[in-house]
């Protein structure tokens, strides 16, 4: 299966700071990828690089097998909605659709019209007077109607109320169901991602902390709680992601491929929100395969 996005050692530097560093990913097609991380972690940079809005400082990136924005054909295969879902404030909704039709040979005018009617947008209304949710839906329509193979969405629901968020995701999932589009969706709201994502990337401080299929990640992480123990005593296959200790008890979040057989531990599965929070916490090291020594109490 070809990768939707493949990066090797990708990095982007602005003046002195690295917005993204050492990013190596192979995102498979046909997935809805959640890109999670705190503000300023590099999510916008990664999406900008994939959309061809930015050029890398080092490393390589290929999108659907080609360099980003390699030409009109490749631009037509990738849809991009930037943060704050920009639109031309003085242009009407209908004009935006005409823009899409004129500039995209693969434009599906029928889909665009259907979606606009479904969302309830007035084609004569100027984009500047739309609500945030309506503008986000317009931006999504513009991205979807060119029938892309890959959709890149940069925090599209961040400034929307819960109802508008739900409607946006509904439209997105319907499009994915209909066209099998790959989606990369960045957010710092984990609960939304839980419903819709089947691949997860956690990005913190310009580096990828973990990336993988949600099912596999959830299956390979466990929460262990039991009497107070030094994490160094764990078997080699169990890498500690997060630990906390009281004077009598230890609670560890471990990544492991084998079942935990030690009867001293109470083993519980880990939910996606817990998992993401653990990897987002800058105090936790990215686990190597050897468990970490040292105790933080």
């Amino acid at each position: 299966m070809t990768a939707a996005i493949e990066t090797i050692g990708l990095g982007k530097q602005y003046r002195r700071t690295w917005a993204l560093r050492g990013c190596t990913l192979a995102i498979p097609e046909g997935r809805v990828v959640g890109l999670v991380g705190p503000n300023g972690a590099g999510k916008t940079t990664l999406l900008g690089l994939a959309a061809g809005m930015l050029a890398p400082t080092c490393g390589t990136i290929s999108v659907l097998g080609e360099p980003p924005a390699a030409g009109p054909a490749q631009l037509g295969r990738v849809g991009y909605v930037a943060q704050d879902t920009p639109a031309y404030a003085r242009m009407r909704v209908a004009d935006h659709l005409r823009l899409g039709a004129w500039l995209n040979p693969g434009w599906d005018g029928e889909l665009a019209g259907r979606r606009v009617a479904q969302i309830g947008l007035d084609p004569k209304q100027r984009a500047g007077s739309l609500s945030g949710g309506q503008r986000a839906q317009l931006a999504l329509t513009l991205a979807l109607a060119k029938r892309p193979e890959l959709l890149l969405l940069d925090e599209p629901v961040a400034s929307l109320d819960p109802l508008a968020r739900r409607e946006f995701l509904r439209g997105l999932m319907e499009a994915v169901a209909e066209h099998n589009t790959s989606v990369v969706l960045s957010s710092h709201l984990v609960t939304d991602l839980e419903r819709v994502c089947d691949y997860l990337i956690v990005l913190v401080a310009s580096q990828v902390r973990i990336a993988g299929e949600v099912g596999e990640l959830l299956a390979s992480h466990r929460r262990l709680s039991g009497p107070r123990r030094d994490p160094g005593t764990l078997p080699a296959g169990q890498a500690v992601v997060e630990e906390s200790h009281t004077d009598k008890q230890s609670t560890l979040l471990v990544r492991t491929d084998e079942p935990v057989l030690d009867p001293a531990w109470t083993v519980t599965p880990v939910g996606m929100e817990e998992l993401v929070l653990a990897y987002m916490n800058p105090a936790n090291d990215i686990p190597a395969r050897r468990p970490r020594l040292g105790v933080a109490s």
Partner: protein
Amino acid sequence: MIRLTWLQFRTQAVTAAAALAAFAALLAATGPHLASLYAASGLSGCHGGGCQNLAGSFEAQVQSTGIDAALYVIGLGIILLAPAVIGLFWGAPLIARELETGTSALAWNQSVTRTRWLAVKLTVIGLTAMAVTEGLSLMQAWWAAPLGRAAGLGAPAGALIQGRFTQLIFASHGITPLGYAAFAFALGVTAGALIRRTIPAMAVTLAVFAALQIAMPLWIRPHFAPADRTVIATSPGNEAGGATGPGGDTLTLVATSLPGQPGAWILSSGPVNAAGQPVSTVPAACTASSIENNLPDFDGCLTSQGVREAISYQPASRYWPFQWAETALYLALALALVGYCFRRLNRRRS
């Protein structure tokens, strides 16, 4: 892409069309009046050197009507300002607005490369800019034709009668407006691409364009070809200026025309003595016959003292070569800026 360019350019295009139409209407309304004045003055049948008086009185008549004179000056002003307005309002926002509002993320992710996006926009709007400016110039030239003919027939130089080689007229007629429009537009677009915000880009465009427009006639255009030089006798037609100061009155001579070289562009003129060296003070023998009292006497005195006038000038025959040279220079600058814009746009630093 062309349709999109027109869609986004609609407001500016309509404004320009309205301005052109208003200007045209104004000129069309007053043009016949000016033409009738010309016909009544008897200049139309006049040939040769004897027409100077008729031409002079025609000019005085036009001056006295007030409206025509004002319109002439306004027309010139509009033509000279048009490129700057285009650079500010059509050029600076082109890229800067898209970057400022974030719509660049929308525009440059459709199935159109940035190169094509910019190329079409520059071509459509740039050609419109050149057409509008040249259109204004041609309309005004049609309207002011009687004045031009009067100048050709020897009317004394004045506010309304200026040779086409003089700074203001050179810049507002011929083909130079095309070059100015193209350059100002390209300058605006480049400033917008570099500065990424519309208002600062407009300010920079205005500053740079104004600087060049001032520098060009003063320091660059005179050197398109080596100036011709000649020394002539002083004459009452060429004013002598004087001011009282320590060491005697200063003497300046300002030539506004060169006998034998009608339509020449006078670059500089000044008094020289018999040996050809510059003279800066009135000779002691002539201070008694001051300018206010008796011009021909003063003149004769200067001549008897061996003071003559040295003039450097560009002959009228060089008018069109200079027009082509200046236009080509501005177009070359415009193309260089445009080339830079394409490189800059494709760099994708941020």
